[in-house]
């Protein structure tokens, strides 16, 4: 483990890489905005949300080696929590509550985000406790089932008490207010007119960086090394005295909490949540990002997110005209091409490049 000592002394190259990364992160929305307008910046916002999700899933799949196919459920938990705590929905359903809160229910983002993380972690442990002693492939199916159960409940919990508002979802969720600045409105900052999507971009970037930092620190910690040991050989890890059950539960909880934070931000950003945002396909999409980029390698995962999150917009921009040119009409919906690509990516990466397009270096992988 001389590696962790080496890591604390960043090399010249790593430092230059970091500076370039920071610059790219800072300027990305302005470049994207120049190229494709606010729609592209919005796409970047979603890419950042996906990065949070994928880094969470990466802890579960990449570090601990537990395949979670219901990861989007934690995103949903965070999103619904935010929606319930900062929309008029609960007040219209429960008049007593409305009487107690004459100004409406507008919970601050400072409360919602940590609460969403905690709540998702709680759900993660709830799911993990009975299932984590199962072998990986069983776990995959159980988590998939859990994801579907959460969605069934979201869709049907409008009776007897209307909590989730059923398939219609919850709308008019408050936008994020930070230090009195409403992120949903264009703001004038130092003479620049900064539209809402840019403001959200910087907020999401800060949170994504925090999560990234947490991931790096976790990876280099005793816990992170224990996770890798479990992934490589659970029996050996147990024989070395690791409490594998507790460590796996911890991986589940931490991964889930990142998902929950992402979900809360998503709800406030969209202003609207509905069960259909949290389908299995979304879980698969996040998994595809982690797998394509490189399981267990943070830069790889981020690359995977950016590639796959940008893909739909790129396809929309190019595929229509390419098909027009080839066939004289648009035959195939870009959405379908995107799914085709996800499916192919999962198969081909597993077959030919199991460590992803940007794998951890051999030394670091050990």
């Amino acid at each position, binding site marked *: 483990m001389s590696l962790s000592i080496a890591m604390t002394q960043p090399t010249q190259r790593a430092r230059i890489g970091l500076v370039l990364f920071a610059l790219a992160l800072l300027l990305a929305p302005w470049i994207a905005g120049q190229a494709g307008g606010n729609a592209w910046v919005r796409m970047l916002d979603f890419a950042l949300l996906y990065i949070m999700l994928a880094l969470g899933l990466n802890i579960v799949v990449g570090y601990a080696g537990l395949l979670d196919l219901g990861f989007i459920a934690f995103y949903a938990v965070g999103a619904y929590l935010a929606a319930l705590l900062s929309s008029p929905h609960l007040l219209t359903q429960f008049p007593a509550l409305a009487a107690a809160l004459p100004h409406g229910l507008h919970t601050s983002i400072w409360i919602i985000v940590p609460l969403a993380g905690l709540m998702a972690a709680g759900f993660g442990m709830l799911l993990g406790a009975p299932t984590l002693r199962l*072998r990986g492939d069983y776990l995959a199916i159980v988590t998939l089932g859990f994801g579907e159960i959460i969605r069934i409940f979201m869709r*049907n919990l409008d009776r007897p008490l209307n909590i989730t508002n059923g398939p219609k979802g919850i709308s008019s969720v408050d936008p994020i207010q930070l230090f009195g600045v409403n992120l949903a409105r264009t703001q004038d900052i130092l003479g620049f007119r900064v539209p809402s999507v840019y403001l959200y971009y910087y907020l999401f970037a800060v949170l994504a960086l925090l999560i990234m930092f947490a991931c790096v620190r976790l990876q280099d910690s005793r816990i992170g090394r224990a996770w890798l040991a479990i992934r490589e050989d659970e029996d050996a890890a147990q024989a070395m005295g690791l409490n594998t059950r507790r460590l796996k539960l911890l991986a589940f909880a931490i991964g889930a909490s990142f998902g929950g934070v992402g979900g809360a931000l998503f709800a406030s950003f969209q202003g609207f949540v509905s069960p259909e945002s949290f389908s299995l396909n979304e879980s698969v999409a996040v998994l595809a990002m982690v797998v394509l980029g490189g399981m267990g390698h943070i830069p790889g995962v981020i690359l995977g997110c950016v590639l796959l999150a940008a893909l739909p917009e790129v396809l929309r921009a190019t595929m229509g005209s390419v098909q027009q040119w080839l066939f004289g009409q648009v035959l195939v919906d870009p959405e379908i091409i995107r799914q085709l690509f996800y499916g192919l990516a*999962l198969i081909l990466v597993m077959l030919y490049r199991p460590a992803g397009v940007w794998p951890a270096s051999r030394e670091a992988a050990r």
Partner: protein
Amino acid sequence: MDIFIQQLLNGLVLGSLYALIALGYTMVYGILRIINFAHGDVLMIGALIGLCAIHLLQSAFPSLPNVVVLIVATLIAMAACALLAGIIERVAYRRLRNAPRLAPLISGLGVSLLLQTVAMLVWTRNPQLFPQLLPLDPIEVTSGDITHAPAITNMTAIITVVIAMLVMGGLLLLVERTRLGRSMRAVAENPQVASLMGINPNAVIVLTFAIGGALAALAGIMMASNYGSAHFYMGFLPGIKAFTAAVLGGIGNLKGAMLGGVLLGLIEALGTGYMGELTDGVFGSNYQDVFAFMVLIAVLVLRPSGLLGERLAVRA
């Protein structure tokens, strides 16, 4: 009482479908110790190919009786899906036999997504009307009165159950009495030793996938005939539930898959039928799909080896 019998009948139909699908999971698991994630989508492809075959046959030979059309279309779909399942094994799983456990699961997930997308491309996103070629006239099993509706069934449902039972019996004979069955069991026991005995493990594995695919196609066509529609997403839930059934019965065990399938069908039907009554209509049939997952989690926690299985689910 009528509700009970009605739900029993529904459960039996559902259960025999689950059992047919579960066999595919359990055979593959028994040999390769992997979960074939794309199995449910093979079912979907089977139903849609069957649909195409029916349309073709009906337009080419308008005078053909319905039953013949259905039988020929089913055979075509089964052959196509046997081929498809064999190709899936060859392309997505064979290279990954010695890879970490996650690898075949993820590539299977990719195949599943790919099949759904291809189905969406060929047959659109919308449910396709599946012609109901067998009589659907209600057959009263119990005599109802003014307060209670009678329990009813129909020819399609009866034929579904009968064919499923026949096919499962045939499969058991195949595996337990024939040379092919013996080599399948040998490969499941130990591929290396089997190959020393002159068995080609790869051929046996492809055949196992093919049999599973054919059974899935049969189940898919039966499902579409019972519900009257087929669409690109129809394989997902039955696939998961059939996997649950396989685990319930003890994965890797053929009789277990059959038992688990029928049991799960009954649990689901009875649970859904009585849920509304027990909770005063608060929770209705919209929670139907929750049952299978609850059963799955309960089985894995309480008895991971399933009803008839050896101890497999917990990491050795």
